[in-house]
C-alpha cells in the first residue's frame, strides 16, 4: 500500500512539520501507517473469511472430519482449521463437541493447532507486509506442523488424559439450516464488528511496540539479542512469545519492525507463531478439558515445531526476501 505510506508521509511532513525519515517523524509514520493498513486489511479479510466460514458451522466440520480416516483426517482437520474463527474462546466447546462425537484426539488437535496459527487473514497479511513466497511458505509449514502434531498425539495414545466428562457429553446435530445471502452478510458484518472490538487494543499495542523497535531501539542491541548469526535467536523469540496473548494482527507489526532491524525472517515467524498458537490464557482454558500430561505434550510439540520452523526459515529464508 504505497499510496497510503505516501499519504501518511505527507501528513507527517506537512501536517506535523516532522521529517518522516527522522526518528520521531519515522515512528509517527510507522504508527499511523501500520494502524490504518492493519485496520483496512482486518475489516476486508474478516468479512471475506466470515462469509466463507458461514458455510462451515462446527457441526458440518465435524461431519466432514468424521468421514475420513488416518492421515487424511488430520490433513482435512488442518485445512478446515484455516477457515475457523480466530477466537480461542470457541476452542473448548469445539474440543468437547469433536471428542464426544468420537473423532480421534489427534484429528481434533490438528484442528486446534491450525486454527489460530494459519488462516486466510495471515496469508494476505504476510503477503502485504513481506511477500507472497513467505506467506505461502508460512501456511505450508503451519499446516505441516498441525498435521504432524496431531498425528504424534494420536500415536501417544493420550485419550486417558482427557477429562471424563468430555466423552460423556451428548452429541447434538444442528438443523444446519441453509442461510440466505442476507444472513451470511449479517453474520460477516457482525463478525467484523465483534473481532474489531476484541483486537483493536492489541493492534495499537503491537504497532506501538513495532514503532518503538523501528525507531528507538538501537540496531546493535536487537542484533546482539536476536541477530541472524546468533544461534539462540529463535529460541529466545519462541520462549518470549509463548506466554503472550495476541492474534496475528497485533504481532505482525512487531515482526515487521524486527525484520527491518536485521532479525532473521525465521526468528520473526517463530515469534509470531509462538504468540498466536500458544498462550497462557488458551492453555488455562484447555486445562479444563485435558489433564496436565496431554497439555504439556501439546505445548512441547507445538513449541518444538515452531523452533524448527524458525531455524529452517533462517537457513533458507534469505532466498525469499
Amino acid at each position, binding site marked *: 500500500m504505497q499510496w497510503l505510506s505516501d499519504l501518511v508521509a505527507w501528513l507527517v511532513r506537512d501536517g506535523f512539520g516532522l521529517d518522516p525519515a527522522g526518528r520521531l517523524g519515522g515512528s509517527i509514520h510507522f504508527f499511523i501507517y501500520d494502524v490504518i493498513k492493519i485496520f483496512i486489511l482486518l475489516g476486508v479479510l474478516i468479512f471475506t473469511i466470515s462469509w466463507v466460514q458461514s458455510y462451515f*458451522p462446527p457441526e458440518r466440520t465435524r461431519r466432514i472430519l468424521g468421514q475420513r480416516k488416518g492421515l487424511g483426517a488430520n490433513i482435512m482437520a488442518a485445512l478446515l482449521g484455516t477457515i475457523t474463527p480466530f477466537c480461542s474462546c470457541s476452542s*473448548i466447546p469445539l474440543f*468437547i*463437541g469433536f471428542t464426544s462425537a468420537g473423532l480421534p484426539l489427534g484429528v481434533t488437535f490438528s484442528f486446534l493447532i491450525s486454527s489460530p496459527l494459519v488462516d486466510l487473514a495471515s496469508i494476505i497479511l504476510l503477503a502485504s507486509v513481506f511477500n507472497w513466497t513467505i506467506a505461502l511458505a508460512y501456511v505450508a509449514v503451519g499446516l505441516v506442523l498441525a498435521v504432524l502434531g496431531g498425528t504424534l498425539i494420536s500415536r501417544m495414545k493420550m485419550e486417558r488424559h482427557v477429562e471424563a466428562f468430555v466423552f460423556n*457429553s*451428548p452429541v*447434538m446435530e*444442528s438443523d444446519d439450516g441453509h442461510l440466505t445471502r442476507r444472513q451470511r452478510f449479517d*453474520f460477516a458484518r457482525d463478525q467484523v464488528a465483534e473481532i474489531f472490538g476484541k483486537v483493536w487494543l492489541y493492534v495499537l499495542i503491537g504497532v506501538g511496540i513495532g514503532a518503538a523497535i523501528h525507531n528507538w531501539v538501537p540496531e546493535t542491541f536487537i542484533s546482539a539479542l536476536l541477530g541472524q548469526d546468533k544461534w539462540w535467536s529463535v529460541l529466545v523469540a519462541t520462549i518470549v512469545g509463548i506466554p503472550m496473548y495476541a492474534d496475528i494482527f497485533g504481532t505482525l507489526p512487531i515482526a515487521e519492525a524486527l525484520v527491518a532491524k536485521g532479525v532473521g525472517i525465521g526468528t520473526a515467524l517463530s515469534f509470531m507463531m509462538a504468540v498466536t498458537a500458544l498462550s497462557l490464557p488458551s492453555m488455562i482454558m484447555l486445562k479444563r478439558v485435558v489433564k496436565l500430561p496431554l497439555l504439556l505434550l501439546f505445548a512441547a510439540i507445538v513449541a518444538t515445531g515452531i523452533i524448527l520452523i524458525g531455524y529452517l526459515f533462517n537457513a533458507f529464508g534469505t532466498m525469499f526476501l
Partner: protein
Amino acid sequence: MIIKILGSGCKKCIALGENAKAAADVAGIQADIVKVTDYAQIAAFGVMSTPALVIDDKVVSSGKVLSVSQVAEKLGTP
C-alpha cells in the same frame, strides 16, 4: 418456564439474554433466565457454538443471537 443462556459471558450472550427476557415479557410468560457459563455444563447440552438458547432443558438455537421475535417464535408465542 426456565430459559437458559449458554455462553462464556461474551457480549452476544448478554444480548441474547436481553432478547429472551423481552420476548418472555411481551408474551406474558413468567420465565427464569439462567446464565450458564461453565464449559462442562455447556458441553452437557452438546452445544459447540455459543451463545445458545435452552428452553426447559431443550436446545432451541446455537451460535446466534436471536432477535426478540425469533425468541418469541421459539417460545411458541407469536
